[in-house]
């Protein structure tokens, strides 16, 4: 796995694309939060964590769209699947490479809590647990994006599919749907919405039910991708 992970991460480190996506993510989210601090005069970390999923919704599909789609297009998938590597190893190596890049993007936002700490008292626990929630949410989005990238040879299609699915997942518990959906449906959406579970982390709470939810979500797409890779025509 280490070998394949090295190959995957080197692609992004030796390619301007990886740097461009990570830096754009960091620049945009930092800008968006900082501009609102001066407008609202509220120095809280919560707006950053509330905004983060909407940026990850775009950032993660952009990073992961090529992960299998490009291999299928140029047929290096045949090289990969005819090497003595098992499918679980292939998924995990690719997942880890993308996860490290997302971590790098999040590291580039560490300046924000430091900046906000000058203006108000920030709870360290809230910040740490918030970032933990962001990492876990990212892991889930990555597993979903990898699964969708495996479904197509076209990177743009992979990106758009992942973007649309992420968008639907995020929109499930917003006020927009609350005004048009019956309560029983909304309650169901709340149960399965990643945003709803992520909110616990923003509050500084590590809820085991939310951890279980995210782990299950990750495992579903991990298993679906591995099954797909194992399936032989």
């Amino acid at each position: 796995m280490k070998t394949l992970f090295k190959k995957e991460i080197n692609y992004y480190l030796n390619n301007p694309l990886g740097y461009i996506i990570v830096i754009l993510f960091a620049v945009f989210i930092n800008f968006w939060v900082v501009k609102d601090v001066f407008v609202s005069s509220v120095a809280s970390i919560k707006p950053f964590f509330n905004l983060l999923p909407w940026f990850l919704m775009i950032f993660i599909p952009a990073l992961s769209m090529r992960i299998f789609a490009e291999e299928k297009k140029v047929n290096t998938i045949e090289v990969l699947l005819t090497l003595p590597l098992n499918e679980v190893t292939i998924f995990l190596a690719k997942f880890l490479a993308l996860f490290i890049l997302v971590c790098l993007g999040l590291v580039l936002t560490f300046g924000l809590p430091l900046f906000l700490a000058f203006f108000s008292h920030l709870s360290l626990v809230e910040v740490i647990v918030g970032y933990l929630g962001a990492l876990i949410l990212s892991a889930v989005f990555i597993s979903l994006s990898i699964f969708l990238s495996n479904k197509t040879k076209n990177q743009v299609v992979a990106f758009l599919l992942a973007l649309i699915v992420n968008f639907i997942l995020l929109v499930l518990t917003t006020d927009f749907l609350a005004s048009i959906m019956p309560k029983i449906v909304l309650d169901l959406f709340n149960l399965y919405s990643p945003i709803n579970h992520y909110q616990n982390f923003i509050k500084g709470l590590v809820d085991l039910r939310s951890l279980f939810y995210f782990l299950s979500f990750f495992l579903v797409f991990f298993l679906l991708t591995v099954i797909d890779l194992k399936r032989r025509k």
Partner: protein
Amino acid sequence: MIIFSSVSKIFGQKKAVDKISFKTKEGEIIGFVGPNGAGKTTTMRLILGYLKPTAGEILIDNLNPIENRTAVLKKIGYLPENNPLYPEMKVKEYLEFIAEVKKDSQWQNVVENTGLAEVLNQKIEELSRGFKQRVGLAAALIGNPKILVLDEPTSGLDPLEQEKIRDLIKKLAKKKTIIFSTHILSEVEDVANRLIIIHQGKIVYDGKKPKGKGKVEKLFKLKIKNETA
């Protein structure tokens, strides 16, 4: 040893491979020929477990390539059709990657055998067709596999490069089983000691390569015509 027992592969309505059976022995160099769409690539992919047979049984050294995938793949070196490579990688990076996956620390010998020493630090996308083919072949050779499956190894190469690849295949043949597919029948005459002709998914000839210049082509045309008639 490769054993195919009445293997068929159907894609939708099309029978790509139709009840083919053959066995291979160590030291055989098998020229696997047939018209376009005959089932050569499909057969090779079945050997690797990249495709699953619709019917029949395949054994590689008594192992099923689907159920014992990684164990089988350690025994086989494969050069796929059209030689897909990672263009952004340097030759050295790519071969190191393959060597680490196949757990071969002696891969530098392969570099010497395939004449890649001068291009090790070049990106694969910058190489000529001939050198790219050599990279693909080198990757297949890493790990010293017992079985080599080469799908059109000289495809798109100039005559000089073709000769170099043929010479390399002959050199490697000792203690290995080599199956290579080709449209160049003179290649089979030059390199192979056994000939399998496949047409419309069926094996129409499996035996010793006929001796004499032009005999392979004569046999090929005869078998294909008979099957078509």
